């Protein structure tokens, strides 16, 4: 059986195991961990054997003549898969501590839906055409719905409605017709290096179709379609961490990346309409979401708005449509993933031990939970993009990309946004460490699986500053593929 099949089957088998082992919680969690570990190993194995250069395509089904469900691996997908699988492992470790300490109910459903969501994500990453992408995009929405509404109370139900309504609504009303139009225009929906639609559309209609994709992929949380993301924060923290800082939202921007590269093609995107006008969607989202984040007192909500802002960095880089911008965008998927998950883990650790959700309540907590707040600081610094942290590289290339495109205003926006990041993120650990707390309490650090889960991503943030080359090379090989056929 091919490697692609195993990548899809591993999380599905994990889900089945979790379900079967319902009665033995320790074994059930062990199965989850084993699933995460094997998926990560598989991805590493694929990287080592350079499967991303092999051009193998696996056709799952062919609903209509020419319209296939097919899987293939390309370098950008491999990068995303590596990140997602490693973080699945880390998050499972964290979740074991969190869910037990929080006495959550329905943990079997939780772990099995988690595995199903990862399976959908892997399908989305490996999708070799738009239909497959669409199918797994929707499956990802569905499989995360039980996770978002985990608590089952009225607030969770309302949030679940908003989550499903916005994500499914936009995808059916805009993404699906966009795919239909691509099919109508070209008789195919496959991802093609250099762009399936290259030279088939006038600049105006390119822009319109691109807008349909941009707004149809609600998971990328571009304003004004971002409201589902703060709503989804009612989920347990491990879910918020993996799915709403990494898997779901990154699946959205990754879809935009793939569609830009392989459906439109970079050359076609450099046309006026996309570059001059549509690029303001992400640019404004970066700024506005930062301002909203400043005003939020709820810690998870503040992080959610920070995510919205950071996602738009990626979309912005993609829309610059030059090699440097795309490189920055792809790297940012990786860097932001590790940094943001550290922040969410820290927020969850605070919640699980102190039951505090507000930023204003955290003053002076740093001395009681030093480890947690150190992790938070490291994550914040990486997001801000300071040297010594991996986050620097992605901002570096994004800035270079906007210079190459002669978009000075965008460069300014990127810099201003970094300043805002300092203001709304770094202020939290600063207050926690340096101001006095009025209340006395005997709070300790979170359970050790949580701490273990938190340590890993923040260590990786540091590591990525010193050795980003393997990933840069991986992304470059993917971009070369996409740019080669266009001569651009």
């Amino acid at each position: 059986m091919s490697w692609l099949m195993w990548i899809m089957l591993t999380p599905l088998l994990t889900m089945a195991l979790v379900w079967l082992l319902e009665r033995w919680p320790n074994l059930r969690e062990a199965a989850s961990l084993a699933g995460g570990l094997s998926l990560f190993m598989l991805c590493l194995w694929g990287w080592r054997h350079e499967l991303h250069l092999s051009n193998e395509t696996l056709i799952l089904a062919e609903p209509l003549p020419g319209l296939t469900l097919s899987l293939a691996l390309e370098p950008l997908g491999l990068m995303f898969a590596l990140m997602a699988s490693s973080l699945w492992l880390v998050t499972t470790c964290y979740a074991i501590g969190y869910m037990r300490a929080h006495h959550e109910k329905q943990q079997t459903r939780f772990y099995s839906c988690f595995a199903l969501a990862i399976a959908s994500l892997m399908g989305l990453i490996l999708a070799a055409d738009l239909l497959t992408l669409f199918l797994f995009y929707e499956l990802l929405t569905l499989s995360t719905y039980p996770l978002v509404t985990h608590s089952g109370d009225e607030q969770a139900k309302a949030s679940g409605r908003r989550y499903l309504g916005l994500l499914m609504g936009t995808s059916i009303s805009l993404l699906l017709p966009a795919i239909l139009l691509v099919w109508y225009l070209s008789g195919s929906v496959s991802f093609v290096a250099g762009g399936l639609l290259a030279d088939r559309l006038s600049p105006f209609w390119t822009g319109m179709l691109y807008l349909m994709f941009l707004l149809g992929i609600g998971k990328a949380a571009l304003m004004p379609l971002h409201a589902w993301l703060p709503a989804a924060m009612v989920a347990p923290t491990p879910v918020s961490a993996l799915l709403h800082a990494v898997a779901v939202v990154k699946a959205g921007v990754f879809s935009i990346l793939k569609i830009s590269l392989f459906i439109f093609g970079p050359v076609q995107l450099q046309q006026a309409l996309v570059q001059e006008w549509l690029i303001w969607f992400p640019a404004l989202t970066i700024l506005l979401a930062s301002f909203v984040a400043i005003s939020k007192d709820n810690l998870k909500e503040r992080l959610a708005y920070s995510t919205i802002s950071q996602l738009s960095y990626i979309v912005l880089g993609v829309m610059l449509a030059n090699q440097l911008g795309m490189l920055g965008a792809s790297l940012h998927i990786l860097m932001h993933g590790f940094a943001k998950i550290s922040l969410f883990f820290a927020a969850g650790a605070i919640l699980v031990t102190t039951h505090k959700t507000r930023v204003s309540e955290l003053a002076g907590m740093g001395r009681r939970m030093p480890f947690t707040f150190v992790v938070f600081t490291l994550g914040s610094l990486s997001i801000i993009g300071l040297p010594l942290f991996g986050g620097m590289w992605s901002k570096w290339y994004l800035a270079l990309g906007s210079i190459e495109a002669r978009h000075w205003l965008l460069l300014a926006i990127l810099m201003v946004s970094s300043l805002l990041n300092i203001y709304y993120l770094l202020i939290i650990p600063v207050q926690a460490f340096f101001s006095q707390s009025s209340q006395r309490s005997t709070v300790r650090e979170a359970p050790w699986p949580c701490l273990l889960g938190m340590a890993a991503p923040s260590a990786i943030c540091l590591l990525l500053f010193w050795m980003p080359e393997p990933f840069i090379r991986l992304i470059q090989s993917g971009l070369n593929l996409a740019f080669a056929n266009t001569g651009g």
Partner: protein
Amino acid sequence: MIENHMTIMLVVLPMLAAPLIALLPSKNLSWGLAILTATLQLYLAVNVLLDVQGGTAIHYELGGWAPPWGISYRLDSLNGLMALLVCLINFVCLLYAKASIEAEIPGRKLGLFYATWQLVVTGLLGIVLTGDIFNLFVFLEISSLSTYALIGMGRQRQALMAAFQYLLSGTLGASFFLIGVGLCYAATGTLNMQDLASQIGQSDQPMTLYSGFAFLFTGLLLKAAIYPLHAWLPNVYQFSPQAVSALLSATSTKVALYVVVRCLLDVFGVEFSLSRLFADLLLLAGSLAILFGSLRAIQQTDLKRLLAYSSIAQLGYSVVGLGLLTVTGLSGALVHLFNHGITKAALFMGAGMLALGPGTTLLTRLAGGTHRPWLLLLFLTGGLSLIGFPGTVGFISKWMLALAAIEQGHWWLLVVILLGSLLAILYVWKFIETLYFVPQNPPETSTGPVPGRGMWLACGLLCLAIVYFGLDTRFTLGVAMDAARQLLGVHP
């Protein structure tokens, strides 16, 4: 010898089985004979459909009398697909019916119930297979009359009212149809459909033909519950016995719509019947049906009634596909008849299982999908198919219809189709959410009968079919494309 008579056996088998079933002494024997007949029919239907694949047609002359004097049966891709749908649904519903019906209907009536059921199937298959328009009317009446009886057996008292309402509408529809047939006969002097088709261009009484056409279609649209002639449908689907709702939702309106397609495109022909005005009217009626049905479905508080309004909306999709008059649109419409048939049958069966305990399908009384995850999965599969989720049959038909709308440049129609899907998310999520979450004060869990093995088997089969035919459409869409090409006279 038998091979030659396969077509007619499809109709004759249930007709012969009906009185036998009524006479059999035990309910198990009655059911056994019914399911045996259904199995044979399914086998026959698959066989004849394989025979006509690729565009050939089977002609069968009843009693050896040559048409246009004798009654002839003609089987091509179009009615082959419909016959398969009817036989498949009949088989699955009977499988389901045993446990479901025994919980609803007193034992002594069961023999009569299965006998009437066979008559409904006889009528439906007769309508589908006959090549004679008066014979079609006869079968229409056979199926309608026995349907009224089946509906009236519902557990709630409103079932009688629903049956009566349907009787009025149905009789009205059938009378209109008969008047139409009479006028056509007056103008052309023939009742054989193919003969009629060749005479229509040469008739010297166009006004008679036009009035005949108008009567015929008003009658048929009433039977098919096409908006705005849908008023009888919600009550019928809501109050019928569970298995009957499933059977009717998947077959009766579909068969009536089949007659519309057959008469419009085959008998009267595109030039005569589908002037742009009439085609546009169909598009309009279909679009209104999609929007109206979906909006009403969202408001419902009873699961079966919600599904009934959703049926009105889904029928609208097929009408829209018919009005587009292209191969893509028409094949989308035809495959949607099949696809929606299996989807809606699965959903009504699921509703029937939920109703076993509490005896009602009010959404507020339904809960505990979480205790039966398989049931939730059934509703999810069916619901996603209604929305048009990729990987289910609903996606295929909506993809074809939307593509056809784009090809014709009808952008507003694309909007309507997508809007229908969006509204479908709302009403589907309405019941999924009810089933998924544990309510604050759970309704008293009555110790009613639990779903039998046959019920699970039937639902499982349909769910598999929903996914399978959503991924592999060579068979369903292939047949629908053949039929569409034949009807529109396009050669591949």
